[in-house]
């Protein structure tokens, strides 16, 4: 059926900030949806509070509202824009929740706005546990025994009936937040309470445990003519019990016979039909490994992380087609965009194996609880494609950019048998490496299966890899063996380790014998139809399908999996660089391995290589394509890390040179540079031993900022206040600084300033200067950033501009540059220079209208800024105030300390803008999910060094009518200042203590700063975790607290008695 002509303006709801469970995949789906709707001639109004996304660019939507995703703000947009319809099913759980909220508010009816995609009843039937269960019963589809509970007691009594272990699934939470498996009453009590607190409807499902079943997912689509198809099915490497977002997943299913495949396909299609979904849907099923018994676990009535994965795994663009279906088109009339000759009403056939491996944040949260369960913990994922399962898996492992490029980890080789088996059974992020190690130690796959329940099929594949490892160890480099291990996906580095040769040896040996990869096409149809799609993966096979053109071309390196410190911002820059290259007439080739992103959408670039980003993999593509050069500025640290190797191989790095990069990253060179340019920097030294460190510390004076050189997102960076703390730091971070020196700087307490600039080596154009709300010491990614600057004096701004210009010119940089300054006693000191795209590129590009990544790409390829219309200078400041507010995922990450510091912890960001700073901050905070009550109580518990500064905040809270609670020390200071306060006991005291206060929900805010001393540290940690787990805002920086009270102050009216006559007269 042709598209609808009765609607013209469609509002698309995005998914907001990136959090665990809702990440870049929704930028991909949203971008596709907007493009798809515009392609059909509709006007698109987009609402999304996430400025880092590509979808919020004007190129993708006609009107963009980066406003808070709340019913209230969306109502405002609806009133203003009067759209004919809303498409909420591409914005994840947030989009669905907004659709439900808007409908309930009555505004849709009032303005005659139609909900496209999936009927509201379907959303409710799929999301509401009770309705879903009754639908399944009605359809005779089996679901695990379960009960909806709304109290802990109900949960306990049901568990008594069906027996432990049970699974808790809170209703309407994303990424399974608050859920988990419980082995006993104590665990259930805790998990149920937490789950009920997090569920917006205060409901949890208590479910029979079917752990050990195979977990299988079907991505299905349906249109209004009732065509329903399966795009892709996937089988989890890990059996039921681990959230699918935390599971290694392969596509298509591997161990299902056709009968099982069709049985589950029928169930999935019956479900999407019963729900009358128009668009995409994800059905999760559990299949007994010993019978045909299966259960329907969950249905997501929208596009999801899995559908992004399925789109990349098959080439079938689910979100794009879902948008077309939403406006009335049917699958049998939409062309298959990959072949261009066939239609979308078919089921893709794969002739390769896809593996997805989650990327967890435990490299940054070393103390976090790494155990995997029903609550998702991964921040991102990688996908890899191979012609064998072994190849696919090993390519995935090296795409992770972890400490290893293979299934070997030295830390795991050191584990005892008991440690290995315990961790294997309980399942954590390193399980795959542990399994490999166990096989290396000759444990049988039977043993492994008993511990993990992982299917023998997958364990046998691991065994194959280990056997090949042994052969390599035994025989060394041999032509036939080398070909076999390459076909199984071994990296040269892995071969070098096992054969005890150098990587260069292995590569030379391989090249001499022409053991080189070929590139195969992803075409949705297993070669049945001719296809023009430039989407490739490598394999050690016969025929190469990627024929290099003779065009002038450039390779752009992507940023790999989303992780803390390297988010969707880098994908934004990558995509814009690619688009700019195309515009300039270059053939733009991209390499990346993240299935969630826009950059790996095959329609973005001229050629897409879905590959790991190791030197070997990148060089293979370069050898084939012979591009003019490689752009590495937009791929974050991932790409920067390749510079040295690429340069060594004689590859032309376009833009800022390796030498310039070194001068900014190497401590000594950097210091020489700044000295030469007479630019101020905090005193500091670079050391390689404890002895040197202590000497340097004494010389510079505490407090100090310490960090390893060459790290990302402030990993392992800390502020130390004493020699004792420094020693502890050095002890715990020895592994991190392995090979690279530790940097020790003077910690200066001052305002932090961030400058982003584009330079052609001579001219330096500055789109914007931002100031941070939180003082230096809090990682810039975790700070609230304000543009334009509010407190920065012109003379200081000039210092920043001058320093930026000097550095860019001196290093003859080409492209983007980001510099962070701290303002201390009227001087701007340079903290850090990043010779690449920074996190703030999309934010600033959108606000200032300066296409930063595009300009950077143009100058990288030799154009001059003045010719492009951007000579040296600062972009004019727009009206209004724009703030960037970080968003954290602490509720998903147990045992992670929430205190802000030099190490980055946020997973995403939102924007808030308005006419005043306070209004902008309010909107930003609302967007970030902070609840800002204008009355209630606040708990203050701060370190001694912060007590005097805290008073101002206490005073304002008091004046706003808040009741103050404080721990003894803090309370004494407040009382002294004549502000009424109620003292509460420290953690564990007999009287009512701070924890009770938080657990009972008696306070709306907690202000807590990091204290020294281990007791104080651990108490503070408890307080912060309790606050997170109870959904209470915990402010760990006084600057954040100050900003919030200011906001509340503006939003409310104080109640203050008029001053007595005398006071007036005296004043």
């Amino acid at each position, binding site marked *: 059926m042709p598209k609808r002509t009765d609607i013209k303006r469609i509002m698309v709801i995005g998914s907001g900030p990136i959090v665990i469970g809702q990440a870049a995949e929704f930028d991909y789906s949203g971008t596709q949806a907007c493009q798809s709707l515009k392609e059909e001639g509709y006007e698109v109004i987009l609402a999304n509070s996430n400025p880092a996304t590509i979808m919020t660019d004007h190129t993708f939507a006609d009107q963009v509202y980066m406003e808070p995703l709340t019913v209230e703000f969306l109502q405002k947009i609806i009133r203003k824009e009067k759209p004919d319809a809303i498409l909420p099913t591409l914005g994840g759980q947030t989009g669905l929740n907004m659709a439900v909220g808007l409908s309930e508010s009555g505004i849709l009816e009032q303005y005659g706005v139609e909900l496209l995609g999936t009927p509201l009843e379907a959303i409710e039937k799929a999301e509401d546990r009770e309705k879903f269960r009754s639908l399944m019963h009605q359809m005779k589809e089996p679901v695990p025994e379960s009960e909806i509970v709304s109290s802990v007691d109900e949960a306990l009594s049901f568990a008594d009936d069906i027996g432990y272990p049970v699974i808790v699934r809170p209703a309407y939470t994303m990424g399974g937040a608050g859920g988990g498996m419980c082995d006993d009453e104590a665990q259930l009590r805790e998990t149920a309470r937490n789950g009920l607190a997090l569920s917006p409807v205060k409901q949890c499902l208590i479910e029979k445990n079917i752990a050990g079943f195979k977990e299988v997912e079907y991505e299905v689509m349906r249109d209004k003519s009732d065509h329903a198809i399966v795009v892709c099915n996937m089988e989890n490497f890990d059996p039921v019990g681990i959230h699918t977002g935390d599971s290694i997943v392969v596509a298509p299913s591997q161990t299902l*016979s056709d009968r099982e495949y069709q049985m589950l396909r029928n169930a999935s*299609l019956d479900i999407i039909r019963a729900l009358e979904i128009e668009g995409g849907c994800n059905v999760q099923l559990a299949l007994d490994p010993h019978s045909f018994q299966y259960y329907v676990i969950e249905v997501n009535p929208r596009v999801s992380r899995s559908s992004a994965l399925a789109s990349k795994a098959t080439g079938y663009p689910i979100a794009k087609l879902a948008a077309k279906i939403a406006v009335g088109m049917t699958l049998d009339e939409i062309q298959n965009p990959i072949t261009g000759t066939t239609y979308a009403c078919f089921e893709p*056939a794969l002739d390769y194996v896809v593996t997805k491996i989650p990327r967890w944040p435990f490299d940054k949260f070393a103390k976090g609880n790494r155990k995997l369960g029903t609550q998702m913990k991964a921040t991102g994922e990688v996908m890899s494609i191979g012609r064998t399962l072994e190849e696919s898996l090993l390519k995935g492992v090296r795409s992770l950019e972890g400490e290893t490029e293979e299934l070997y980890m030295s830390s795991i080789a050191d584990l005892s048998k008991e440690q290995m088996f315990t961790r294997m059974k309980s399942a954590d992020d390193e399980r795959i490496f542990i399994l490999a190690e166990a096989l290396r130690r000759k444990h049988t796959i039977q043993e492994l299966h008993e511990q993990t329940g992982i299917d023998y099929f997958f364990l046998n594949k691991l065994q194959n890899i280990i056997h090949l490892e042994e052969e390599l160890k035994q025989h060394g480099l041999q032509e036939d063996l080398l070909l076999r291990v390459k076909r199984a996906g071994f990296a040269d580095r892995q071969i070098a380790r096992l054969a005890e040769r150098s990587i260069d040896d292995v590569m030379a040996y391989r090249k001499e014998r022409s053991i080189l990869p070929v590139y195969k096409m992803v075409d949705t149809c297993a070669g049945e139809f001719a296809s023009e799609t430039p989407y490739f993966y490598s394999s050690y096979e016969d025929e190469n399908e990627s024929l290099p053109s003779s065009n002038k071309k450039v390779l752009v390196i992507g940023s790999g999996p989303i992780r803390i410190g390297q988010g969707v911002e880098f994908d934004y820059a990558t995509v814009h660089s690619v688009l700019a290259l195309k515009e300039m007439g270059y053939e733009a080739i991209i390499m990346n391995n993240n299935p969630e992103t826009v950059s790996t959408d095959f329609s973005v670039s001229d050629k897409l290589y879905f590959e790991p980003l190791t030197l070997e993999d990148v060089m293979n593509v370069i050898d084939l394509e012979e591009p003019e050069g490689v752009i590495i500025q937009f791929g974050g640290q991932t790409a920067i890390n390749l510079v040295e190797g690429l340069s060594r191989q004689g590859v032309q790095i376009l833009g800022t040179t390796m030498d310039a990069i070194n001068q900014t990253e190497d401590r000594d060179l950097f210091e020489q540079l700044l000295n030469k340019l007479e630019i101020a920097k905090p005193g500091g030294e670079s050391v390689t031993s404890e002895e040197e460190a202590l000497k340097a510390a004494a010389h510079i004076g505490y407090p100090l900022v310490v960090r390893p050189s060459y790290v990302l997102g402030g990993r392992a960076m800390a502020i130390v206040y004493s020699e004792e703390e420094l020693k502890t730091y050095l002890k715990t971070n020895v592994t991190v600084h392995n090979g690279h020196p530790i940097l020790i700087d003077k910690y200066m307490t001052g305002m932090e300033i961030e400058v982003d600039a584009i330079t052609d080596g001579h001219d330096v154009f500055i789109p914007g200067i931002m100031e941070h709300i939180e003082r230096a010491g809090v990682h810039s990614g975790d700070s609230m950033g304000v543009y334009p600057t509010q407190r920065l004096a012109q003379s200081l701004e000039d210092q920043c501009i001058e320093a930026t210009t000097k550095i860019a010119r001196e290093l003859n940089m080409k492209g983007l540059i980001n510099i962070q300054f701290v303002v201390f006693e009227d001087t701007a000191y340079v903290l850090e220079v990043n010779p690449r795209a920074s996190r703030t590129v999309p934010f600033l590009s959108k606000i200032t209208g300066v296409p930063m990544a595009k300009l950077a790409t143009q100058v990288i390829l030799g154009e001059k800024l003045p010719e492009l219309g951007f000579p040296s200078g600062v972009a004019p400041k727009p009206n209004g105030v724009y703030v960037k507010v970080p968003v954290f995922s602490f509720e998903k990450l147990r045992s992670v300390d929430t205190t802000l510091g030099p190490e980055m912890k946020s997973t995403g960001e939102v924007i808030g803008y308005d006419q005043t700073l306070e209004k902008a901050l309010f909107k930003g905070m609302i967007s970030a999910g902070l609840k800002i009550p204008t009355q209630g109580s606040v708990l203050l518990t701060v370190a001694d060094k912060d007590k005097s500064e805290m008073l101002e905040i206490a005073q304002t809270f008091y004046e706003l009518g808040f009741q103050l609670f404080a721990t003894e020390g803090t309370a004494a200071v407040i009382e002294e200042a004549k502000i009424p306060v109620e003292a509460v006991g420290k953690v564990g005291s007999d009287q009512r203590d701070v924890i009770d206060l938080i657990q009972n929900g008696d306070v709306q805010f907690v202000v807590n700063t990091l204290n020294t001393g281990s007791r104080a540290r651990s108490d503070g940690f408890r307080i912060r975790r309790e606050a997170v787990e109870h959904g209470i805002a915990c402010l760990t920086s006084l600057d954040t607290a100050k900003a919030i009270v200011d906001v509340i102050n503006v939003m409310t009216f104080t109640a203050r008695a008029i001053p007595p006559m005398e006071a007036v007269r005296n004043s």
Partner: protein
Amino acid sequence: MKKQLVLEDGTIFVGEGFGSERETIGEIVFNTGMTGYQEVISDPSYCGQLVTFTYPLIGNYGVNRDDFETVNPSLLGVVVKEHCEQPSNFRSEETLDEFLKAKEIPGISGIDTRKLTKIIRKHGTMKAMLTSTERPVNEVLQILSETELATDQVKQVSTVKPYVVPGRGYRIVLIDYGMKHGILREFTKRNCHVTVVPYNTSAEEIERLKPDGVMLSNGPGDPKNVPEAIETVRKLIGAVPIFGICLGHQLIALASGGDTTKMKFGHRGSNQPVKDIESGRTYITSQNHGYAVDKDSLTHTDLTLTQTSLNDETVEGLQHNRFPVFTAQYHPESSPGPEDTSHLFDEFLRQVKENLANEKGDSACQNVQI
């Protein structure tokens, strides 16, 4: 053991042998299904062919006792990227290798099956020989050019004697041109009394069985190679409701004056979309055919085109203008593949029922006349 697969155009693929060590010559085709290798290998329609599986891992769930479509497979060879030596599935009884050895079917693994598939796509299906690498290529090519592929596949795979699968429902005669068990299963599921007869059973013999309906099965090869079957079908049209699948569908077309042609590389897989012209609905179907009914040849026949392939618009379904006779080029019995069109069997039985009611009505009228 190293083996080579040599195509008549001279392309050589060298890989590892598995299954039987026999040499074999046949027509090389490819199937794009990602599951269902056991059903494909045992589908008699592959008689005379070497089947390339485009999915690279074959044999993952082993071979079980349930999923056969015939007792003795008749395909000539199996071509895969990798065959699984340690299958995993609760029903698995043996590995693919063990099964092929037992059934004396040769296989080759470790070759670039995507390259092979693309050759077939570009140049069409062709003759191929699977043999030891010791045999010189020139010799192999010589043999290939001298070998005429078999044309009597239906005779090879059809039952020699009729047999009955009793039931209490409608009496169906199922003509076996190389029948998949799946078709029989659909009728027994519906309680039919099925008499399976050889491909060359005459119309008279069939009519003596007094069937309520006649089912024409799938089968291998060119439908023009079985003129006796075409003759039988021609006589049966109008006498009894008929449903023809695959080869059966093509025979109905030929019997009605239509024509069939050989396709370049056919349709073989589980994801083929078929559009029903009247309802506008598209179904995902399981297919396996190398010949198709020529659309233009239908003009002067009593047949109406009811369904076409969404991808290449070839004929997928026909309906007779005057009699309860209809067809499907694809496999509504699935096995392997989607079960989305199994309602065609219900439709057939509905037509059978309606026809019986009409006949009863007619005989009632006659009775009145007497």
